[in-house]
């Protein structure tokens, strides 16, 4: 026989203003199985909790129902109180009288009636509660960081410096990401590579960091503290141990005209290549799609010239399996290319370039060695136009959001242009100037006031070529919407920052959610900006939304702290809300018939096959088994099982059935 205590909270007047709390307590006191009921002003206060604890010890309660606020608010509080008084914490349930009743209904009998109903549901449920024990799981104190841009680099270093192991994987041959492509950085105009490359070297040399470049995540299974990842190390076609990075091969490779990814297509590279001189690791890879040997079966010049014999044409992709406890995703973003814009010529004008391409032109390590020369004929543009919001904030293009970084980098570009091309004229077409950030607005004003960049508020409808000039035809909305035409030598589009290709696929591998634009979703937009909805997986940088460098770094450090916090414990406790397949005495063993349809219904691959064997080791029966480590407790399998062989702790068949019955039947 149950001995249940009902504790009705007034919550000051939050509940008692519309619900007759005394009546609720009195009514509950008359129900079967309720041995104690009381109402009190603040149940969550110390005296309130003592009231519960005393009742548990004095009345020998077997179950507790606290009728107060939302369990999402105080369930841990009251469960803890019960545990302190020696009652299994999972024998405590909460009826939500505040958020679901007193705050949303007027004072009156109906409201009190509802409160009574809500309490009764839980009183009946708690009769079927079982004592449960929290699940303890060990933590593997190694982190996986996906993406070696500035966010991934920062996160890796921060985690590694707390003394934990980090595995950093990067899909390209070198770490560095977009930041390594940038010329100078706003708002200080310090050289991007000068501040980044020391960090890259630090990553490579850090004893706690294992770096896999040219590598991608193949698959992930497991859960917080206990993930298993498969990493595909794409074949570099060289033996990294033998390669000294002498660059004989990259100098001699006869295939020299491949558009360089690092230079955004403005420069060329060879088939065996190091993406840029400061690359980490500074060892080449063979691009098999463009290598003559892989296409035609002969060449092997690199093999001939290599002094250490490091070339491995038959090297295969390697799958590395690692065990990790937490993941930081820092896969970054990409930008739309000019061919996305019909109004700007579908990419057919060579001198209409993206902001990222301009970075390469302005960079001292770029294809023009930092001189601003236009791609078509190498001339220094005398007139240059920058278009902000190319695609961004344009619902018709499917990109209604602001790409955030463009206002600032356009100001920087225009400034760099003015510094490098004396007497040159620069124009910026913009919708708004969004320069919220430390020293940002001042930076934009400097571009306008000191460097004489012409800012035109309006959009550009069309760019076309005429007599060797690019005619930029737009409107000036501050001049009464007058049409403006500028004959430019070069146009730079601040094309929208968008999610990487394959972001969706990666999200599915990781079981994390993403927004409609395929940026990864944070767990809470304000309070959990670096967490995902999957415990143990964190976000850093522009994979979550367009981010500038300071923000990416801040996020990365935030994610690193979350990882370090997780690694500070030797084991994690989880609520035992998990599914269980029943086991019975022989000869039945389990009512499960082993159809295993639940396996595909489970979002976590938590259901396995278990073979029940007799003494001779012969399989008598194959039944489903839930891996408690993987199960997250959604209960999808429970509702699906035809034989009702799976049940979920905390929300069992009996509990849920009883709740429905209790609610509707008259007592």
């Amino acid at each position, binding site marked *: 026989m149950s001995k249940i205590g009902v504790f009705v909270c007034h919550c000051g007047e939050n509940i008692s203003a519309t619900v007759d709390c005394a009546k609720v307590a009195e009514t509950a006191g008359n129900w079967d199985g309720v041995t104690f009921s009381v109402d009190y002003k603040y149940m969550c206060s110390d005296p309130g909790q003592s009231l519960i604890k005393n009742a548990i010890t004095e009345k020998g309660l077997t179950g507790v129902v606290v009728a107060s606020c939302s369990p999402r608010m105080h369930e841990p509080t009251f469960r803890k109180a019960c545990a302190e008084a020696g009652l299994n914490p999972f024998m405590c349930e909460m009826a939500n009288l505040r958020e679901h009743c007193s705050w949303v209904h007027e004072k009156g009998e109906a409201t009190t009636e509802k409160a009574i109903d809500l309490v009764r549901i839980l009183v009946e449920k708690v009769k079927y509660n079982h004592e449960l024990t929290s699940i303890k799981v060990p933590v593997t104190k190694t982190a996986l960081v996906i993406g070696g841009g500035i966010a991934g680099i920062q996160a890796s270093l921060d985690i590694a410096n707390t003394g934990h192991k980090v595995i950093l994987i990067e899909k390209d041959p070198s770490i560095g990401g977009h930041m390594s492509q940038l010329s100078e950085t706003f708002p200080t105009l310090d050289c991007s590579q000068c501040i980044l490359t020391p960090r890259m070297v630090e990553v490579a040399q850090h004893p706690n960091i294992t770096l896999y470049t040219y590598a991608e995540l193949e698959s992930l299974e497991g859960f917080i503290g206990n993930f298993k990842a498969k990493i595909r190390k794409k074949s570099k076609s060289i033996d990294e141990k033998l390669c000294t990075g002498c660059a004989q091969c990259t100098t001699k490779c006869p295939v020299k005209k491949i558009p360089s990814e690092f230079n955004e297509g403005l420069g060329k590279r060879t088939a065996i290549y190091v993406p840029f001189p400061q690359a980490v690791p500074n060892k080449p890879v063979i691009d098999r799609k463009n290598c003559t040997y892989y296409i035609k079966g002969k060449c092997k010049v690199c093999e001939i010239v290599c002094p250490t014999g490091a070339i491995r044409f038959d090297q295969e992709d390697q799958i590395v399996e690692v065990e990790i406890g937490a993941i930081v995703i820092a896969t970054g973003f990409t930008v739309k290319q000019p061919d996305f814009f*019909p109004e700007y010529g579908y990419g057919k004008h060579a001198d209409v370039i993206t902001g990222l391409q301009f970075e390469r032109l302005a960079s001292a390590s770029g294809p023009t060695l930092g001189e601003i020369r236009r791609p078509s004929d190498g001339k220094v543009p005398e007139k240059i136009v920058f278009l902000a919001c190319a695609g961004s904030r344009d619902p018709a293009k499917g990109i209604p959001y602001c790409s955030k970084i463009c206002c600032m980098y356009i100001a920087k570009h225009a400034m760099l242009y003015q510094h490098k091309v004396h007497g040159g004229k620069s124009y910026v077409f913009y919708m708004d100037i969004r320069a919220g950030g430390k020293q940002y607005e001042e930076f934009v004003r400097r571009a306008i006031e000191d460097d004489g960049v012409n800012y035109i508020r309006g959009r550009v409808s069309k760019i*076309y070529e*005429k*007599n060797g000039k690019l*005619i930029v035809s737009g409107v000036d909305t501050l001049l009464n919407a007058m049409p403006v035409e500028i004959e430019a030598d070069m146009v730079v589009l601040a094309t929208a920052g968008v999610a990487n290709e394959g972001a969706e696929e990666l999200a599915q591998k990781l079981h994390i959610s993403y927004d409609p634009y395929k940026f990864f979703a944070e767990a809470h937009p304000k309070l959990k900006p670096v967490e995902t909805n999957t415990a143990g997986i964190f976000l850093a940088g522009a994979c979550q939304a367009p981010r500038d460098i300071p923000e990416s770094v801040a996020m990365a450090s935030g994610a690193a702290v979350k990882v370090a916090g997780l690694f500070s414990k030797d084991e994690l406790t989880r609520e035992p809300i998990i599914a269980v397949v029943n086991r019975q005495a022989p000869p039945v063993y389990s009512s499960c018939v082993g159809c295993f349809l639940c396996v595909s219904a489970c979002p976590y691959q938590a259901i396995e096959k278990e073979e029940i064997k007799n003494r001779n080791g012969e399989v008598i029966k194959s039944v489903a088994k839930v891996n408690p480590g993987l199960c997250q407790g959604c209960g999808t399998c429970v509702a699906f099982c035809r034989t009702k062989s799976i049940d979920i702790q905390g929300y069992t068949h009996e509990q849920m059935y009883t709740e429905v019955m209790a609610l509707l039947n008259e007592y």
Partner: protein
Amino acid sequence: MTLGFYPGCSLKGSSREYAESVLAVAKAFDIDLEEIHDWNCCGATAAHNMNKELSLALPARILSLAEKQGLTEIVVPCAACYSRLTVTKHELAKDPELKIAVTDANNLPYTGSVNVLNIIQMLDKYITPVLAGKVVKPFDHKVACYYGCLLVRPHEILNFDREEDPQSLDVLMLKAGATPIDWAFKTECCGAGLSVSRTSSVGRLSGKIIGDAKDRGAETIIVACPMCHSNLDMRRDSINEYLGEKVDIPVLYITQAIGIALGLDRKALGLQRHFVKVSV
């Protein structure tokens, strides 16, 4: 074979030569164009600014009549008519209530089964495949294909060609032996809405179009819209005034250009009706 034919007002008036050339080219390929009986105004320019239901009821009536006449596919050479008819089909397909209202207003059943072709689609579908064998006099000129605003927009409804830098006319003219030029004003506004009220604006807007075509060496401008044609041809004086020079590049309907390539009688194509003399 027989196709339905909706000429609309322009083809009966200011652009009779368009109608003549469409019929002449169709005839050359044994296509019978059957005019929709008792057709009415498509409501272009005015109706959709005044009353949405009316602006849809007018084209819906035309489509209902075509259905009644047993036509499954109709050719609509005028770009404005084409736009109105297609938009109507789209609007009525997505809004069943509106469809009922419009059907009631017209007191004619409407199912939306009639396929509406603009002139380029019609040529593409029925003539391009057999064109090469019939060209007797390749249209060996540099041509600027001008699409105007209505033929390819709004893209999400018409789903025809690309809305910026369209290609379909260029491809057709290439097959007729011409050399289409790459130019910048293919879809620029000719000022059609101001054709009567503000001719000076037309001079400026159409002037830019003619100017660019001339600068890039076009010998002929090819159009597929009566409004475009009348602005670029009839308003040439205002255009020349804007340009400050006398430009005498003729403006031909696509069907006239193809007719010439086929060696059809110039008079049957209505070439004599233009303001700017057709010297090609």
